[in-house]
C-alpha cells in the first residue's frame, strides 16, 4: 500500500466519522471550492456545491489532500473564467505563516541541504555558507515556539490594528489555525467585502508599516537636529511614541538586548550606551508632550531614522501580503484536514484564541490533532536524511536519521507520512 493511498483512506475515515463537525461557511453556495487530490499535485477549482450535504459527500468520497473555499462570493462560482463568475465581493483574508519570517527556533528545527556542495545545516540562510549557492533544499518544521510567534502576530493584528484603528466588530472576525504553520483571519463584513485589490493593499501597508512616511507623520529635521512626534498624534505616530515609551521603561539590560539584536535594531554598543544615559530625560520630554527636540549624543538624523524604521518593523505585523490583496484567493476550508500534517483546519473564536495551543490543545473541540493515537502505534521508516525533533502533545519524537525504523503513536505516524519524510514500514 502506498503512503498516499493509506493517508487517503484515513482521511476518508475521518470525514465519515466527523462530518457533523465540519462547519458550513457563510454564503455557502456563492463560494468557489477547490481541492488538491492525493493522486496528483493539481488544484481542481471552480467547483460549487448547492448544499453542505453535497460537500460532505464529496469529502467522504474523495477525501482530498487539501480543501479550500473562496474568500469571494460569486453569482456563478462554478464558471471557470474569472470574469464570468459574477464577482460580488470578497472577505478580507489575512494569512500569518511562520514560513515567511524569522523565528529563533528555526535555527534548531529548520534544515537545509546544498545540492551543489552537499553541505547541510540548520536555520534559514539565504545561501549556502560554503559555496554560495542560492538554491537550497529546505525542510522547514514547526514547534510550539514558532506557532506562538504566529499567534502573537495575529493577536497584534487584531488588538493593535483591526479593533482600535479599523473598528472591526469582533463578531465579524473569523480565525482558523491553518493546520500547519500559521493562522488565517477572515473579516466578513459588507463594507469591507466591496474593497478592491488596490484598496486592500492600503490595508496591508497600514498593518505592516510599509510605505510609511515619517516626514508626513510630523518628523522634521533642522540644522542636524531632529524634531520628533508628539504622543497625542493619531495613527502610526502614536503607535511609534507608545513603543518608544514602553521600550525605555524597560530595564537597561533588556533595552540593550533589543537594540543590539541585528535582526531588530542592530545598534552598536556606544549608540545604545548614549541612549541609556539620556533615557530618563528623553522619557520625561516624551511624557510632558510639550517639546519634541530629540537630541541624544551620537544620534544623527540618520540614526533616528534607523531607530524609527526598526520600530515600525517591530510594530508592524508579518502578514502574507499577496493573500490579502488577491480577491480570488482560496483559503483552507474549516474543519478539513491539511495534507501536509494530517491536522485539522481549526476555527477558533476570538475569546478562545489567547489560550489556543495547536500542538498541545487541552479542549477537545478545539484540538487540531484529530488522529491522536493514545494506544495505537505504527512502524514507519525514515526516508529523509535528517528529520528534526517533533514535539506534539507535550511528548518529544526524534530527531531521526534516514533509515531509522521507528514505532510511534498514530498521530505522529500520520504527521511524518504527510510531511513525506517517512514511509510505511
Amino acid at each position, binding site marked *: 500500500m502506498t503512503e498516499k493511498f493509506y493517508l487517503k483512506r484515513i482521511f476518508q475515515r475521518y470525514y465519515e466519522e466527523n462530518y457533523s463537525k465540519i462547519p458550513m461557511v457563510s454564503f455557502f453556495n456563492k463560494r468557489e471550492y477547490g481541492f488538491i487530490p492525493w493522486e496528483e499535485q493539481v488544484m481542481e477549482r471552480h467547483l460549487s456545491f448547492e448544499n453542505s450535504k453535497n460537500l460532505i459527500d464529496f469529502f467522504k468520497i474523495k477525501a482530498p489532500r487539501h480543501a479550500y473555499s473562496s474568500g469571494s462570493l460569486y453569482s456563478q462560482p462554478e464558471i471557470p473564467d474569472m470574469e464570468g463568475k459574477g464577482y460580488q465581493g470578497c472577505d478580507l483574508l489575512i494569512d500569518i505563516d511562520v514560513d515567511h519570517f524569522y523565528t529563533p527556533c528555526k535555527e534548531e528545527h529548520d534544515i537545509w541541504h546544498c545540492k551543489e556542495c552537499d553541505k547541510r545545516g540548520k536555520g534559514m540562510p539565504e545561501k549556502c555558507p560554503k559555496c554560495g549557492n*542560492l*538554491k537550497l533544499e529546505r525542510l522547514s518544521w514547526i514547534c510550539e515556539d514558532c506557532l506562538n510567534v504566529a499567534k502573537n502576530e495575529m493577536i497584534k493584528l487584531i488588538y493593535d490594528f483591526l479593533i*482600535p*484603528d*479599523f*473598528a*472591526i466588530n469582533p463578531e465579524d472576525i473569523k480565525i482558523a489555525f491553518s493546520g500547519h504553520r500559521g493562522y488565517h483571519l477572515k473579516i466578513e463584513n459588507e*463594507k*469591507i467585502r*466591496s*474593497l*478592491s485589490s*488596490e*484598496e486592500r*493593499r*492600503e*490595508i*496591508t*501597508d*497600514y498593518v505592516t*508599516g*510599509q*510605505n*510609511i*512616511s515619517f516626514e*508626513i*507623520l*510630523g518628523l*522634521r529635521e*533642522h540644522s542636524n537636529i531632529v*524634531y520628533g512626534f*508628539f504622543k*497625542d*498624534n*493619531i*495613527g*502610526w*505616530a502614536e503607535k511609534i511614541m507608545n513603543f518608544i515609551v514602553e521600550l525605555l521603561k524597560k530595564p537597561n539590560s533588556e533595552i540593550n538586548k533589543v537594540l543590539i539584536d541585528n535582526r531588530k535594531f542592530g545598534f552598536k554598543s556606544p549608540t545604545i550606551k548614549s541612549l541609556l544615559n539620556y533615557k530618563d530625560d528623553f522619557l520625561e520630554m516624551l511624557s510632558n508632550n510639550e517639546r*519634541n*527636540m530629540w537630541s541624544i549624543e551620537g544620534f544623527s538624523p540618520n540614526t533616528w531614522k534607523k531607530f524609527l524604521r526598526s520600530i515600525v518593523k517591530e510594530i508592524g505585523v508579518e502578514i502574507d*501580503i*499577496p493573500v490579502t*490583496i488577491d480577491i480570488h484567493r482560496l483559503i483552507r476550508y474549516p474543519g478539513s484536514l491539511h495534507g501536509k500534517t494530517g491536522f485539522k483546519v481549526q476555527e477558533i473564536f476570538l475569546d478562545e484564541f489567547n489560550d489556543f495551543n495547536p500542538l498541545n490543545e487541552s479542549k477537545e473541540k478545539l484540538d487540531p490533532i484529530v488522529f491522536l493515537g493514545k494506544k495505537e502505534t505504527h512502524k514507519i521508516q525514515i526516508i529523509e536524511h535528517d528529520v528534526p525533533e517533533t514535539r506534539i502533545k507535550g511528548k518529544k519524537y526524534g530527531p531521526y536519521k534516514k533509515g531509522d525504523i521507528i514505532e510511534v503513536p498514530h498521530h505522529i505516524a500520520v504527521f511524518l507520512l504527510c510531511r513525506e519524510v517517512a514511509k510505511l514500514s
Partner: protein
Amino acid sequence: MSNDFDLIRQYPWLPSLKIYRSDLASINPIEFIKDIITDPSKEVLRDRIYEFFKSAFDNLEYFSYYKIDDLNIYFYLSLRMLLIILNNKSISYRVANLYSKITYNELATENDSNLYSICKDLKLDIKYEQEPIIFRKIAIKDQLETLQTKFKIHFSDYLKLSSRLKDDFRKLINNALKDGYVYLRPKNLSRLIQEYVRMKILKFEGDIENINKLKEDLLKVQEFKDLYDSIIADWELKKERFEYSFETAFKKGEDISKNFPPCMNEILVKTEIGQNLQHTERLIIVFFLLALKYPKDFIINIFSKQPDYNENKTTYQVEFAKKKGYVPHACSTIKSLNLCMAQKHNDKLCLDGYFSKKNNKQKKISHPLFYVQFKQYHSAKLKNKDKIQEKND
C-alpha cells in the same frame, strides 16, 4: 447653508440630481440635445462647452467661462454625453481632469455644512464633530503647526476615494485613523471628492452598440454635429503635442533592456542564473515584457533556466497573459510586494524621480513602463543633440 437645489445647481454630479431634476433623468438624450440646440436661451451653453474642450486640450487647470447658473446642470450633462459619443480615452481624461479641478476649487471655498451635505449626498459614511479634533502636531523649535478637523470619514469610503491617488499623503498609513474613521481636513476631503468627480466623468455605462446608435442619432442634429466636429478638429490639431513621439516597444535587433528599471533587471538576472522565481515575480516580468511587445518566444525562453521549467505550461501561461492583455504592475504594487530594487541598486531615477517641466516640480516615477519610456526619451534626446553637434562641427 445653501438649499439643496442650490447645491445641485453648483454640483450637478451629485446623485440627488436625479431626484431634483427627475425631468432630466427621464428625458430622451436626443430630445435633451435638441432642446439645448434650439433653445435661444441656451445658446451660450454651446460656446461654453466648446471652450471647455479647448481648455481641456490645452491642459489648463482653470476655465474662465465657468459659471454657476441655471445652465450648469445642462453643461455637465452635455459634457458627459459628448464624452460618451467621442469615446476617446485621452479626451475623457483631459476633460475629467479639468472638470474635477474646477470642482475642487469650488469645494475648497465651501462651508462645513455644505461639504457635509455633499458627502451625505454621495452616501459617504462621514461624521462631523462639534469641536475640532487635533490629530497631528508638528513643531520645529517654537513653531508649532496643529492639524485639526471636525470631519472624519469611514476608512472604507476613504480607500475607495483615495487609493487611486498615488501620492504618499493619501496613503492610509500616513493618515490619522482611529475607531474606523480617518480624520481629514476639509481641503483633503474636497480633494477626495474631486477624485470622485473625475472617476464619475470617466465612467462609461452601456455597450458599444448602443453608444454607436446614440452617436448616429445625435449627429443627425446639425448644430450638434457642428459642435462635435469643431471639438474633433481641435483635438486633431492639439493631440500631437500630447502624445509621446518616441517608441518604447521592442524592435528586433535593438536592445531596450538597458533602459529597464532595477526591479525588472533583478528578476531577469535571477532568471539568467536559474534562481527560482516567486509566482508574482513571474507575473511581473511577463506582463512588463508583453506590454513592451516582446515576442512570445523571447519571453518563454527567459524561463527556460527555471528549475520547474515546462515549455508547454510556460507557453500556455504567456499566451494566456497576452490574450488577456494584463496591465503591468505599477511601482506601488511592486513596492508592496517587496520587489522594488531602487534602494538596493541606488537608482537615481527611481529614488529621486525627474523634473517635470509641465508641472514645474520634481515628480516620482510611478510605473516601470514610464521608467523605460523616460529613459528612451532621454537617450533619443541625447542622440539628437549629438547629431546636431556633429552637423555644427
